[in-house]
């Protein structure tokens, strides 16, 4: 098997193009910038269009327009740039348009933003948080499929580490199964037929083809996401069956957790790990099962406590929860800091376990 040494951003770009992405727009912002650069270089040769937009707001709206024609379209940014895109992400959700949004985050402080959304309305955003570059490749392909399948914007929560790490990979083009026709897509051809198409978040339709109206449409969209909450969650867990301590983490932080769990197991501690692969839907049922017997549920994330809220909502015993994460960025503020470290994590785990019941 030949492997190619690829920067994470390039691997993601290649995976997007291999998935049929034909429109990409973005605005440079570290650590998302390289993804835009790779798309600018490679997407035109694949017959697609890559635009370096003048604002994040324009980038996401361009991608929304491209998606409305039925094309596989994507955009991306990080953190504060994703904040600018919230309005359009919500709009895409209410328009029921597929759209893939790549958040190459500076750290882990975007969890609330990804899962609670900052746009308007009763919508949710399916969000995948890969732990490494190979998973990012898999998730990229899957997200284009899910966006089309569910007719919704979806997000990949990548980060500085994934974006900038070079890894030897052999990408496989995955086939996730058949998808419905995009009969809702606009190409002009229904104009003048008496049955022109319309994409409108208020769903009022046209005189010949009345819509259900905003109230019913927004109920329908909310119901779609409520159903997805039951079916679309994914998680990964290790060594939880006999664990009295379970460490919960997401994204690249989970690779540090894996390492420390193995170390502590070698020292005789019954430690296991749980990570949501989808930040939304949060795998709450699985979390409750995985931590049912745990006396300590240690939440490790590089922020002031965001995923912590979801752990509190779903864990059977809230009293078992301890937060061992914290804001941790380096001095530039643009990448994870000292807490993304096995030694630091190990110390915090041991300290938490020393506490009385």
């Amino acid at each position, binding site marked *: 098997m030949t492997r190619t040494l690829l920067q994470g951003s390039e691997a993601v770009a290649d995976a997007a193009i291999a998935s049929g992405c034909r429109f990409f727009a973005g605005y440079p912002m570290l650590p998302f910038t390289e993804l835009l650069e790779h798309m600018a270089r490679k997407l035109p040769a694949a017959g697609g269009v890559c635009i370096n937009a003048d604002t994040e707001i324009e980038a996401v709206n361009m991608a929304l327009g491209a998606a409305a024609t039925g094309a596989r379209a994507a955009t991306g940014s990080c953190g504060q740039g994703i904040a600018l895109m919230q309005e359009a992400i919500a709009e895409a959700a209410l328009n029921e348009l597929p759209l893939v949004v790549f958040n190459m985050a500076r750290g882990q402080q975007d969890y609330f933003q990804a899962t609670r959304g900052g746009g308007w309305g009763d919508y949710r955003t399916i969000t995948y948080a890969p732990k490494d570059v190979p998973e990012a490749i898999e998730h990229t392909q899957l997200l284009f499929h899910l966006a089309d399948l569910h007719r919704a914007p979806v997000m990949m929560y990548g980060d500085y580490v994934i974006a900038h790490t070079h890894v030897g990979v052999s990408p496989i083009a995955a086939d996730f199964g058949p998808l419905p026709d995009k009969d809702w897509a606009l190409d002009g051809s*229904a104009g003048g037929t008496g049955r022109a198409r*319309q994409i409108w978040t208020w769903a009022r339709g046209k005189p010949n083809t009345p819509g259900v109206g905003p109230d019913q449409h927004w109920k329908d969209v909310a119901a779609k996401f409520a159903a997805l909450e039951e079916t679309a969650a994914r998680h990964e867990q290790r060594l939880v069956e006999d664990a009295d301590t379970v460490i919960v983490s997401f994204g690249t932080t989970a690779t540090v957790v894996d390492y420390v769990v193995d170390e502590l197991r070698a020292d005789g501690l019954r430690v296991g790990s749980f990570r949501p692969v989808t930040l939304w839907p949060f795998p709450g049922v699985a979390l409750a099962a995985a931590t049912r017997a745990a006396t300590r549920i240690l939440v490790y994330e590089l922020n002031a406590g965001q995923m912590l809220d979801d752990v509190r909502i779903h864990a059977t015993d809230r009293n078992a929860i301890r937060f061992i994460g914290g804001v941790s960025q380096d001095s530039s503020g643009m990448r994870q800091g000292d807490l993304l470290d096995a030694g630091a994590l190990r110390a915090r785990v041991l300290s938490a376990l020393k506490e009385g019941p």
Partner: protein
Amino acid sequence: MTEMRLIASASPSLLQSPDHELCPGCGHPVAWRQVLEVLEELGVADRTVIVVGHGCYTQMMRLSDLDSLQCLHGRGPAVATGVKRMLPDAVVITLSGDGDMVSEGLAEVLHTAGRGERVTSLLFNNGVFGDTGGHMTAATVVGQRTKTSLSGRDPDEHGYPIDVSRLLATIDGAAYVARGAVNTAGMAARTKKMVRRAIELQMAGAGFTFVEVLTMCPTGWFVATPAGPEYLEESMMATYGIGELKAPPR
């Protein structure tokens, strides 16, 4: 025996219904009629996509037999960029009011023109946020009373209107920039020619094309409906002027 021939249908064929809820004397449907007639005459309805912002004119989208995408306030030109890049042979038209374009979406239209996107943006400018009840926009003329400039727009307090057509005419990516009006039949006919030229230039790949149409909003202007056309001439036409601001040689 005298024969009769139909000169004008009451309602353009590209309107599924003429029943809108706009105010008496509103200029928007007058302007939109001209646009629909151009699309019919050019025979491009079956490859036209309209991208429509938020305002009273959004009703025109709902009634029109054209593939339509309703977009976020001000974002039309950016959305249209994505549409046109994926459908290069389509006729892509954005429709905005002055609130949508000159206030909320000024960056979007300038950048889209800068990139020379082959889309046609239409601005129905009545100098007010009509849909919200008559408030000041970045295009409201000096002296205009609105609910947020009750004594009339005062430069000291409210500054001056922005002439987006004039800004666009300075941008190299803009191939055609024109301003018309619909306060008289003659003006409407002149405006129709501008819209036609803009769309033809889009189809020829000349670059970004733009037509601003001054429309009446007697409700927002606090004038009686029959006074709308004259008020438009005295206030908006006097401020902005009519004509082609930028056009390639014929």
